[in-house]
């Protein structure tokens, strides 16, 4: 199986371990992810302006490239990229006039794009599409009593038109965790916003949210928290260390990309992880549970 792959900026910088682990896991599951040539920035945030169509050109250029690549299924690992790209498709599918206006600007592209030729997929849905049985077969390490808190964030679940699961009560990560042989910890803040870009100008908001989310996961007995979004990852990993500096009673929890956990359980090369990128060191827990 082959899919097109869109990395986005974070996966080549701060979230290098997400990319390496995800690609290794997919490889083990028999999927070749072909990186798009000459990809653009996804646009970062889906533009809320309905009249400023310039904002749509970056994501749509990427979608055109996907169409040209011959692999119309486009894997976006970063959830922000997933959200932006997928919503751009919905945007132009819903409004043919806007599609036409956008196309007028796309003079460098030889290919016409109408919206339904390409589909953007996230890695959770892709794994489910490959089959949870296949995933089970690929797991080589049996762990006992490893309790995982799956954190969704918002980008995969909202707005509901592009949601990969129920926005309020999703289950897809838990299904994958169960298939991989770990135990699920349900915690009420798994779909709560991490504070997102408020980290730049209102860091207190993020601190507040991170504390709530982490407290809730810890309280429900989780050993590890897994997620998919590099921004959530930053907000929930980095900020924990900050909180602990202020409040030494605060209990931290190591944060991993879900693909890192799967890679460990599949017994893949440990070099893909680069644990130095983690602020809360996950190695003690991983050692204790026999994954290192």
């Amino acid at each position, binding site marked *: 199986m082959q899919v097109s792959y869109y990395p986005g900026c974070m996966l080549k910088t701060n979230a290098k371990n997400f990319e390496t682990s995800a690609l290794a896991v997919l490889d083990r599951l028999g999927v070749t992810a072909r990186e798009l040539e000459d990809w653009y920035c996804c646009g970062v945030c889906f533009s809320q302006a309905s009249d400023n169509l310039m904002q749509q050109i970056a994501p749509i250029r990427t979608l055109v490239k996907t169409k040209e690549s011959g692999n119309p299924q486009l894997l976006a690992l970063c959830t922000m990229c997933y959200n932006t790209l997928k919503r751009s498709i919905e945007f132009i599918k819903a409004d043919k006039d806007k599609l036409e206006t956008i196309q007028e600007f796309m003079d460098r592209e030889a290919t016409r794009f109408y919206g339904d030729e390409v589909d953007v997929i996230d890695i959770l849905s892709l794994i489910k599409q490959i089959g949870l049985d296949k995933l089970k077969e690929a797991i080589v390490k049996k762990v006992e009593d490893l309790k995982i808190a799956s954190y969704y964030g918002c980008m995969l679940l909202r707005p*509901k038109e592009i949601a990969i699961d*129920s*926005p*309020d*009560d999703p289950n897809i990560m838990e299904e994958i965790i169960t298939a991989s042989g770990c135990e699920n910890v349900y915690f*009420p803040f798994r779909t709560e916003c991490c504070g997102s870009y408020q980290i730049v100008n209102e860091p207190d908001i993020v601190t507040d949210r991170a504390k709530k989310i982490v407290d809730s996961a810890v309280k429900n007995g989780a050993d590890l928290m897994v997620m998919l979004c590099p921004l959530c990852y930053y907000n929930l990993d980095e900020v924990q260390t900050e909180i602990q500096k202020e409040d030494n009673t605060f209990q931290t929890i190591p944060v991993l990309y879900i693909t890192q956990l799967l890679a460990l359980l599949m017994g893949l090369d440990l070099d893909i992880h680069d644990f130095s990128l983690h602020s809360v060191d996950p190695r003690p827990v991983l050692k204790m549970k026999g994954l290192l």
Partner: protein
Amino acid sequence: MKRIGVFVCHCGINIAETVDIEAVVKDLKDYPGVAYVQDYKYMCSDPGQNMIKEKIKSEKLDGIVIAACSPTLHENTFRMTVKTVDMNPYNCEIANIREQCSWVHKDKNEATPKAKLIIKSVVEKALLDEELEPVKVPVVRKALVLGGGIAGIQAALSIANSGHEVILVERQSSIGGRMAQLSETFPTLDCSQCILTPKMVDVAQHEKIRLMTYSELEDISGFVGNFKVRIRQKTKYIDWDKCTGCGLCIEKCPKKVPSEFDQELGKRKAVYTPFPQAVPNKPVIDHENCTYFKTGKCKLCKMVCPFDAVDFDETDKFVEEEVGAIVVATGYDVYPVLNMDEYGSGKLPDVIDGLTFERILSSSGPTGGEVRRPSDGKVPKEIVFIKCVGSRDPENHFPYCSKICCMYTTKHAMLYKHRVHDGQPYIFYMDVRAGGKGYEEFYQRAQEEDNVIFLRGKVSKVYQDDDKVVVCGIDTLSGSNIEIRADMVVLAMAIRPSKGVEELAQLLKTAIDQNGFLTEAHPKLRPVESLSAGIYLAGCAQAPKDIPDTVAQASAAASMVSNLFAQEYLLHEPIITGVDEDLCSGCGLCITVCPYDARTLNREKSIVDVNEILCEACGACAAACPSGAAQQRNFTDKQLSNMIKAILI
């Protein structure tokens, strides 16, 4: 040849502005068969009608064509007019030159010739029209009421009290419906059962009412005044003729299952009556849960029954009846909490729907009327009520307002406060809709006397944290986020039409709206009639409504039934498709295409017989008939072909 008069209406400027009336009149004068032509500004006005009457007499007309608006508007008016001067009403025809001509054209040069052709075509029809008499249909003066809640009870009693027979069919083993489940009723706080049970007993004792509980409508045929219904009496495994309702079987039954009546908070036995005040107060055996049916052993109930009423070999029975009118009062269900992902998807034990809270408040309920939460039986000290859950949410659930939640939630908070004096109730609301006699005062009282805190805003999330249910919402009046660590949450879930209404509507050949409720014939002027003649609506089957409104509508439906039964006979349109016995070969093609079962094969004469009452003149048989024996009255093949020729040639 017949003498046809043509009357052309200006309809003010509605027609005259786009159709050259003068030219039309002039042209029609020379048309074969037309004896007289006259135009007038408003033909439907009194002077207009009088003119028509005069001219029919003075010009000795045999038939007339009124060139005016659509026949749906005034055909009946003009037919009644001609009747007063002894012309057969079916010799009065309408040529629609407004909706089908002047209103859809702008150019007078296009509209005028078209109007001429339309009128000429109808003149051709009028020339061959026969004189027809309406078919008289007898009325069966017996009504069927579907549903034994307060709506059905009220309708049945009201019809029966006007002296007509009623069959009341209820699918549960007892009548009473949702109202029997309620604790106390707004705005007077009188006990629901106390005001309902006397009515239930009245139903059981009324000599004109035949009560058929644990039964469902299986099939229906016929038409207004003459329905034939087939009712399935579901297997009770208890012979109610022998049973005295002593309750010994219930006492001895070893199997306990969650009670539907108590919203699964309490238990009932596998042989059971839904509640102690049931009418009829006789039990049924629940086949699915009965130990005997599961394992082949037990039969304790049979052993203890002093009257040998238990019969494990019983099967469904069918009863066929003829009725003249039907009242549909099938009630509502509550939209399940499991649809609300943001409120715990039904997984949190202390997050319940309003109907379940009614059972908790009810003195005959599982907690004996003490407010205790389902998870651990503790008395909740902080309780949150959320309104509009699933209602007024077109994006995710239903667009409509469930209407009763504002009042019953206020009542819930009040009753809670009356029982838990040191407790604090909160209500999250979108709007408070307290329209109704005494309702606003009731709402004021809840705020002023019972200290219910009303928070205007929606709740985004409800989750369990230790033994608390945390409610995260917003107060839009102060603009602040609110978090309440409550002990219990009650959701005012949307009201849905009760299960099976869609199938019932298909059976009754009547319509349901986009939300699944039965459609009334007119939203304002015919609110209790369905779209099918002789079928009336009452209660929440038509739309969410409270008890006073339900009782009012049920009484209105009963009065419509009485109106119908007061008529000596019903009239049926004589425009039906008959059979020319000389031409019919009895091939039976028309029988298969008839959607109304109006045609049957007469094997003796080898021709097709027509039931004139069932025929709705759709014309399917006339089109299918290979010999031309099936001719629709006043729409014969000859007439239709002449009409087409008038337009084309």
